[in-house]
């Protein structure tokens, strides 16, 4: 423990972020590794959708089994039993290790400094609902459809990314979320 510095957390020195070029090249190589290893790219909402199915089966089994979208996921075995669940668990552990090692792990309500905690909770919840619904309509999110799809030159990926950026630019003008 470094006792000479100010008493302010975090104790580990904060390392700078990677430059966008370095991060982009490494991310591209990780994505390429994923393609040649598994035959598909990286994702995120595949796991949250399966988590929803599992929670639904736990809280309301009959309703979930009868649901045309979530039902098929709870029919054949455990809904979380899938490659994407392991990948998102790895995503969480990799981010945790990186943040800890680089002195960037800090428990906080990020965004409360600009809009206050109560409002920040509302914007985070609303944003999550919109993104969760949208990712089901598109059958993928920024990672699974945008990033991974664009690397395969997918038309849907380019449409998704173009509308994603325009929507983000416009909504930012209207609502301050962070």
């Amino acid at each position, binding site marked *: 423990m470094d006792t000479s510095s100010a008493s302010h957390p975090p104790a580990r020195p904060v390392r700078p972020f990677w430059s966008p070029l370095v991060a982009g090249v490494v991310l591209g190589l990780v994505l390429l590794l994923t393609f040649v290893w598994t035959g598909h790219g990286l994702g995120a909402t595949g796991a949250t959708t399966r988590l929803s199915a599992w929670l*639904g089966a736990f809280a309301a089994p009959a309703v979930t089994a009868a649901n045309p979208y979530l039902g098929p996921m709870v029919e054949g075995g455990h809904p979380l039993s899938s490659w994407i669940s392991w990948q998102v*668990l*790895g995503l969480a552990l990799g981010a945790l290790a990186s943040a800890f090692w680089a002195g960037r792990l800090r428990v906080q309500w990020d965004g409360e400094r600009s809009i206050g905690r109560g409002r920040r909770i509302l914007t985070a919840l609303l944003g999550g609902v919109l993104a*969760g*619904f949208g990712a089901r309509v598109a*059958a993928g999110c*920024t990672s699974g459809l945008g*990033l991974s799809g664009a690397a*395969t030159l997918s038309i849907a990926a380019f449409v998704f990314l173009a509308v994603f950026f325009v929507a983000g630019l416009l909504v930012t003008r209207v609502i301050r979320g962070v």
Partner: protein
Amino acid sequence: MLPLNDAGMVSGLVCGALFGWVLESAGFGSPCKLTGQFRLSDWSVLKVMFTAIVVAAAGLLGLQAMGWLAADAVFVPAAMVAAAAVGGLLVGAGFAVGGYCPGTSVVGLFSGRLDAGVFLLGLLIGTFAFAGLYGPAMEALMNAAEVMAGDTLPDAYGIPAWAVVLGMALALAGVFVWGGRFERASRGPVTAAEAVNGAAP
């Protein structure tokens, strides 16, 4: 011949951990840094994503050209144009309002951000809302305007794959030049120290 088509625990954990390590190291656990892209003051999101897409696309093409990777062997999303547009609209709006996309909210939560946990809760609610509304009308919307000729730009429109990758590489150079100008004309990219302290835009 690649791909190996491994669907096991180890490949999931390893690829996921590398993904999380890169995203956190790029600063993508910080909602202020992420939304800086839409305020045009921090272009890291476009720079990193676009670079990664060009590197991975060029790598896939190169491996196919050398005969190490089977053609048409990796997963390509179906060209559901209406579904992609509506989904892109909602995920983009959710990103601007909530400060994260689904993958980066996991990075945010595991770098200590409680608001990212609320975003993840919202993701689950949004998924339940979609499942509740799922039916023939939703399927009709999702299947509208599908490109039938093919799922990729080369397959559907006959544009050579190398030309698409070259075009993206040129656009990427433009993103770095133009993004750099916008960054210098504004507050600029959010640093790690600012992000850890909960940066205000």
